[in-house]
């Protein structure tokens, strides 16, 4: 059973690597350059998939935390924690890659645009979640507190998505334009697929490690 799971995991990593290579070829060489933003627009092929996964992460954390609060089943807490850990990496990357895009296009690294500000708030929610888990005494209470943080943090995800629609924002619209060049659309979709597969791989790995860590802690507690 372990061998089968490892084979699936390795296959996911291999598929992810192959699709990433294809997407890199598409991003750097194949896709046409956008007329207004120039080469900096290609940053979107990294930034947008990372942004989507950063938002999906908090939704996974919130749903898993909610189920954990009801059922008290450890596997849901393990999933929530693993997703939160990945979420903070993706949220950090959203902010960094967004800043790098903003510099040549807006002329500044950072501005208090609604979309950027709400994304920063999401980053703080992830940080809060992980800090509660790290610094609270181990036990059911820290899991409950962090679950509540995750549930509140999930409210931020749709706000981030709609921020550029609800408020006057310099950030591009969240919708894919209808007249988008087919090559740009293909590149974007393949990039999204490659990041998603890598996300699934890393989430699965982290979840399994977290599960084993929990079991080892339990054995140590029983021995002592």
């Amino acid at each position, binding site marked *: 059973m*372990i*061998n089968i799971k*490892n084979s699936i*995991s*390795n296959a996911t*990593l*291999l598929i992810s*690597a192959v699709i*990433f*290579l294809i997407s*890199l*070829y598409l991003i*750097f*060489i194949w896709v046409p*350059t956008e007329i207004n933003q*120039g*080469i*900096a627009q*290609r*940053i979107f092929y*990294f*930034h947008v998939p*990372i942004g989507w996964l950063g938002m999906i992460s908090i939704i996974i954390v919130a749903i898993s935390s909610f189920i954990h609060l009801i059922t008290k089943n450890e596997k849901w807490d393990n999933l929530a924690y693993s997703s939160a850990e*990945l979420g903070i*990496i993706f949220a*950090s*990357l959203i902010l*960094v*890659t967004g800043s*790098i*895009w903003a*510099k*040549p296009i807006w002329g500044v690294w950072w501005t208090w645009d609604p979309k950027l500000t709400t994304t920063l708030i999401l980053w703080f929610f992830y940080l809060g979640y992980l800090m509660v888990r790290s610094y609270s005494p181990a036990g059911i209470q820290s899991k409950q507190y962090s679950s509540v943080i995750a549930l509140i943090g999930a409210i931020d995800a749709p706000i981030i998505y709609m921020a550029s629609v609800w408020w006057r924002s310099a950030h591009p619209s969240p919708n894919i334009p209808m007249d988008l060049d087919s090559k740009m659309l293909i590149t974007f979709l393949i990039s999204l697929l490659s990041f998603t597969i*890598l996300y699934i791989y*890393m989430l699965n*790995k*982290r979840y399994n*490690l977290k599960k*084993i*860590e929990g079991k*080892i802690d339990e*054995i*140590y507690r029983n*021995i002592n």
Partner: protein
Amino acid sequence: MRYIETLINYSFLKNIISILFISLMFLMTQDIIFSSDGGTSAANGQIIIKESNSNLGYLFAVFFVTWIAFFGYLFFMSKKQENIIHDIKELENIISNEKS
């Protein structure tokens, strides 16, 4: 023991894939990152698309930061895995000592 061996073999495979992946990415991107025109060259050496390369540095920075973050996280997970292997071995020792 079989489980530990599987974990060790898995780490080795992951390292090999990572090195191959980085090498291939470098080979694929070095032409346009270090080229002077930032465009695509035709087979006969003529440049068919000329683009300003002033923002290529930003694109490469995004690419670099993204991969540093992902590989950093994978490294963090491999360290966690090593700790788990160490813990399992320690538990095995404790159990074998108790038996003897």
